[in-house]
């Protein structure tokens, strides 16, 4: 991944020297052609073409924004409701993520979306203890987080 980006920058600079025009536009054009060449030879590298990873990061950002908006609405509904009939609870969320930064991002995403809050992480980094404000079905909540956040993070780190 890092090698491909570095190579792309290198090619963009070579393009600038070939054109003898040292403007940002020439750099962009060279970067574009370099991207095209690297994409054509993407099977040449051991790692995936780095464009896929950038798309995955953007998708993760969009998923986070959508979840933030939807769960804020849910919390607003609970606050404005005259009857207090929520069922708070703590549940264990088993995770397949391995790297430290993956677990940190997952925990932060769960915390930043209102309604759920990461309390603790088990010593072997395999279980996240999550507090939910209103929980009807534990399995549903686990699946919801697994399918949206965990999948998107795996897409980035794969």
């Amino acid at each position, binding site marked *: 991944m890092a090698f491909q980006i570095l190579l792309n920058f290198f*090619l963009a600079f*070579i393009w600038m020297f*070939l054109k003898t025009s040292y403007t940002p536009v020439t750099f962009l*054009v060279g970067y574009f052609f*370099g991207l095209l060449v690297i994409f*054509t*030879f993407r099977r*040449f590298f051991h790692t995936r073409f780095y464009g896929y990873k950038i798309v995955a990061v953007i998708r993760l950002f969009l998923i986070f924004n959508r979840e933030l908006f939807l769960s804020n609405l849910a919390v607003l509904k609970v606050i404005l409701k005259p009857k207090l009939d929520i069922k708070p609870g703590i549940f264990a969320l088993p995770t397949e993520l391995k790297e430290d930064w993956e677990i940190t991002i997952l925990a932060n995403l769960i915390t930043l979306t209102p309604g759920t809050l990461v309390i603790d992480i088990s010593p072997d980094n395999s279980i996240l203890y999550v507090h939910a404000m209103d929980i009807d079905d534990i399995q549903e909540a686990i699946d919801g987080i697994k399918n949206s956040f965990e999948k998107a993070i795996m897409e980035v780190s794969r």
Partner: protein
Amino acid sequence: MKTNDIILQTVTKITLFVIILFSIYLFFTGHYHPGGGFIGGLMASGAIVLLLLAYDIEMVKAILPVDYRKMIGIGLLFSAGTGAGALLAGKPFLTHAYTYANLPILGKTSLHTAVLFDTGVFLVVIGVTMTIIQTIGESD
């Protein structure tokens, strides 16, 4: 005896991209400076030949799963199509159209249908060169 090609392979990994980029530069500079579709295509196929020298034929086929014979056909379609496009506009065959456009990032750019014709030449040259070399290389 099987020799270790690690130096050749490592150098190829970097120079391949520089050569391909230079061939793209030659292709686009053809209207105002020396260059064009023929030499650009030859340079691009030269890069693929370097890949063939450093690795074996199966490896290169896995990296670039391209049918070079189809590439010749597509290139010919490009060139013939550019010529036939002039007929649709009521002009003689192979009359080229050009215009200057103000593109969002690139600024003032000249657009010329001769580039499409050159793209056809580019593809045909790569296709023919690679077909010749691969056919000779595969026969025992």
